[in-house]
């Protein structure tokens, strides 16, 4: 293969590559916009979506734990406040 050939191949790759990337992502812009329009027009989620996502267990624990901590701390402070006030 001559040196020119590889330059040519590089240029071809640039054209084909950027062309494909732009065409594909442009098509995706159109398809996504159409999909969003269609769903929001014809298939809106009326209320609390029935397919409600079960939170990942750890998160669940964390949030529960956190709320408990907050409460516990609050009560602790109250208790301490009361104790020191007495």
């Amino acid at each position: 293969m001559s040196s020119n050939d590889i330059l040519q191949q590089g240029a071809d790759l640039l054209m084909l590559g950027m062309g494909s990337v732009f065409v594909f992502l442009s098509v995706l812009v159109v398809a996504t916009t159409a999909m969003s329009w269609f769903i929001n027009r014809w298939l809106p989620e009326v209320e609390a979506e029935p397919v409600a996502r079960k939170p990942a267990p750890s998160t669940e624990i964390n949030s529960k734990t956190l709320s408990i901590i907050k409460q516990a701390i609050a009560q602790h402070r109250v208790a301490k406040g009361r104790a020191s006030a007495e």
Partner: protein
Amino acid sequence: MENLWLASGLAQIQMNQAIMILVGLALLFLAIRKKFEPLLLVPIGFGGIMANIPGAGLASSALELALYAQDPMVIGAARELFEMPVAHIDAVLHAIDNSAYSIHAQLSAVAQDAGYNNGALYNFYSVAIASGVAPLVIFLGVGAMTDFGPLLANPKTLLLGAAAQFGIFATVLGAVGMTYFGIMDFSIAEAAAIGIIGGADGPTAIYVASMLAPDLLGAIAVAAYSYMALVPLIQPPIMRALTTEAERQIVMTQLRTVSKREKIAFPVIVLILVGFFIPDAAPLLGMFCLGNLMKESGVVDRLSDTAQNALINITTIFLGLSVGSKLAADKFLDPKTLGILALGIVAFAIGTAAGVLMAKLMNVFAKQKVNPLIGAAGVSAVPMAARVANKVGLESNPHNFLLMHAMGPNVAGVIGSAVAAGVMIAVVKAFG
């Protein structure tokens, strides 16, 4: 398989291995102390050290080890296969280097008969990378961690993700230019594999390199992950140079909320469009979309959870060690590595510039202006590049939070470089 070990003496080999051990230590230092993409660079650096232990041959196949040792049984079998009974041993080794898959398979069996075994890292590489599976599994997990909400709220940011891929192809041109001017000797397949560094996406780079230029995989992966870690240093000067203060202060309207159904439909649409337009990108993007669908569908949380944790972590460990196996001195210490490192940073810079300029171009036509800084996030390097866009934006306007706006082009960049990867694999295959 390089015949380097014949050309140079044993001392030279050991010196090279010592150098590579230092390179491995440097990668560990960057990973641990500087937090350079530690999830990959810790196993890569460690694997690189293991691959360069003199005499252990952890990164070599049974056949390679037999040939290093010039095992008479294997050489004899090769002489018979190639019908070159009296040729010089160098000629035999050269013939093996250039022989096809099935010849290698036969000689490998002979080498195993002769008592040689594949090195542990070689086995990891075969299973994790040569089979193509590890990057696919990583993409599955990354897909399960990705939120396409910001992208769906503003789909035209996909174009920013497209523009930033210019870094990939400009770099290909740079690599073939180096070949043209005789500075380096990259084939078109190698040039394509180097260009993908500009995609700023580790698994994509490893996937393409394993297909088009396995010998350069070590250098390409190291460059990709190192520059991804350096995004906060590489991008800001370019972003500032190409934008005016006024542009950097552009405030973008808040993103609309995206419904769950849109999020479920999106990965399916991407899969079908990719299948239709760029089938060679279907493995990578298919797994990415499956991961995302598992997350968004909300009905297979235990699978999504495992894909994001145990599965991606296990794969990352072996992917890193496998990449490390390609840091063996005879593959890495090559002038080409310098070329790769130089071209890689250029790729990041050009990709950043192209993203920013595309955003400015869009502002010429669109009514809703975008802050051109978010164009830089189109190179991917998720989520680092988006954070950089946010940070540079805050410097100009401390109340303008661009992070969510930048996440759109950021994940678009992942899709964009996977598409670019698919095109490159298809076109290079067609070049033959």
